[in-house]
């Protein structure tokens, strides 16, 4: 930044207001944009958008522990699965309403995340990636096991029904599902945004960037890291719960390590350690496989992998990073 610009922002505090005004405008636009699809899109497209929002939420969860805290998890699909199955079991076997299952699912996923966070303390980057990768591969087998088959429905899985809009509101169940997803995701995004900007958020990032210095400064590394895992698992687990109801079906084979990889790709492409990036990541993860299939009917997975590698080489901070740089260049240009 040129010296004159720094001086100006110091001597003229009003200069910061335009940024705040912009942010408010964007949020409002976001809210309008969130509601618009209900009236503009067909049922199936709305469903796809719902799934994109859900995946964005799942990617956000991953970003909390990997992007902001530097603990590489290749097994977040496991938390997604736990959330999905908790909701499915409670709704299917015990007739709970979806809303009732949410806090339960959140709590259980947080507990599981906390449980994973403990051994994770001992592991550095690569070893943790390896362990979580192994977890991801093992999940379908665990879900299919005979001992819990009565609950999980084994290989056939469980069927659910989307709730109807309550109080006779004028929405179809698909539209209501979309609004529920947006609402819950919105809450989580807002909460995470606050977390990231808080002292705890800065502490998490300090641990990521310089663990030795962070420890020397007296931060309780263990508590912060396990806590990050817990919160991260909770958020991704909530996304899992949403997905169970949106798709109206859970089965072990839907939760293979492909889910974990998908979330990872979404995080990288959208933008690591970025709230906005998580949103992009969700959209990418849902719509690009379709595009990839259009490019090459036979090998969409290959295209997917190629895109991932291209992003890592050329755009390591993802879409969000690209936008940030474009925005910076525009504002610099104006001054």
């Amino acid at each position: 930044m040129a010296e004159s610009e720094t001086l100006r922002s110091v001597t003229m505090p009003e200069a910061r207001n335009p940024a705040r005004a912009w942010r408010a405008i964007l949020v409002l636009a976001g809210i309008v944009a969130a509601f618009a699809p209900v009236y503009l899109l067909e049922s199936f497209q709305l469903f796809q958008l719902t799934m994109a929002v859900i995946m964005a939420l799942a990617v956000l969860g991953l970003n909390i522990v990997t992007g902001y805290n530097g603990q590489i998890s290749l097994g977040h699909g496991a938390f997604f699965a736990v959330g999905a199955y908790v909701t499915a079991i409670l709704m299917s076997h015990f007739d709970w309403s979806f809303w009732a299952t949410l806090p339960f699912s959140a709590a259980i996923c947080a507990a599981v995340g906390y449980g994973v966070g403990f051994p994770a303390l001992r592991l550095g980057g690569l070893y943790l990636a390896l362990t979580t990768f192994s977890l991801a591969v093992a999940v379908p087998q665990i879900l299919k096991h005979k001992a819990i088959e009565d609950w999980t429905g084994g290989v056939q899985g469980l069927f659910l029904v989307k709730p109807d809009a309550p109080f006779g509101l004028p929405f179809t169940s698909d539209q209501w599902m979309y609004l529920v997803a947006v609402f819950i995701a919105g809450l989580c995004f807002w909460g995470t945004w606050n977390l990231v900007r808080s002292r705890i958020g800065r502490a998490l990032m300090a641990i990521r960037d310089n663990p030795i210095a962070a420890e020397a400064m007296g931060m309780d590394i263990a508590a912060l890291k396990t806590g990050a895992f817990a919160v991260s698992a909770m958020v991704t687990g909530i996304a899992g719960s949403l997905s169970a109801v949106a798709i109206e079906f859970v089965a072990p084979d839907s939760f293979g390590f492909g889910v974990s990889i998908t979330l990872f790709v979404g995080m990288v492409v959208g933008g690591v350690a970025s709230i906005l990036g998580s949103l992009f990541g969700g959209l990418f993860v849902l719509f690009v496989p379709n595009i990839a299939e259009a490019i090459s009917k036979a090998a969409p997975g290959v295209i997917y992998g190629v895109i991932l590698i291209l992003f890592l080489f050329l755009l390591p901070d993802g879409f969000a990073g690209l936008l940030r740089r474009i925005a910076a260049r525009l504002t610099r240009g104006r001054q």
Partner: protein
Amino acid sequence: MDGLAHQIVAGIATGGIYASVALAIVMIYQATHHVNFAQGEIATLSTFLAWSMIQAGLPYWVAFFATIAVSFVIGVLVERLLMRPVQNAPVLTHVGVFIGLLLIFGNATGWIFGYTTKVFPTPFTSDKPLAGGLISAHELGSTVVTLVVLTLVWAFFRFTKLGLGMRAAAYNPRSARLVGIRVGWMLALGWGLAAAIGAVAGMMVAPVVFLDPTMMLGILLYAFAGALLGGIDNPMGAVIGGFVVGVLENLAGAYVVGTELKLTVALAIIIGVLVVRPSGLFGRVVYSRV
């Protein structure tokens, strides 16, 4: 008692496969401090290449050695083209590239060869049962092959000049450059060698588990477990670890958890090692002095 003996023997046979892949993993780890998550997918692709050569009429052993050569080249190319540009990038980027490789190789295999399971021939057959039915011809043959491969690799590193150069490049790349070693090419060679070893493992395991694009994923997991158990920076340890995991997996599968949960055994071993003794049985315990 017969059952137990056979389980152990079968465990040693599969353990040989795990030991080979574990060795490949450790080789790359030693040289680059990275674990190649895509190791299994590359090996699967190689095995499919062998299969198509055999389908085209080539004799088994011709296809076998041709596949080894091709895999070597693939390994070298992957290192030069994809790993070299990101060699100084943070861990997350490396993990990402490995995942990308996994996606590309895994899906390319399915795309080129289809997803139906294929039968892969074994060159080891026998008309009468061996050792009183204790071991099948293929189990014996594949154990011998993997032992030969492991011995050759050990001898290569221990006794040849190139092997010494590769070890030097892995332990201390800066000093290796100072004595004139082209470290970049040593890395590429290491990758080539690892890919070749993976191909052998794939060709040995395919007759047993049948050939399909996801064949090596589970095996990779066991190999990881073996490498960790023995010590991720110790090739000898990794090999021993691989054999141990093979036997443990078979015994656990037969007597404890049943065959459906075998992958969980691998997971349990991985977590157990990393929590109790991260350097493995034979690895160096590294203390980082702040």
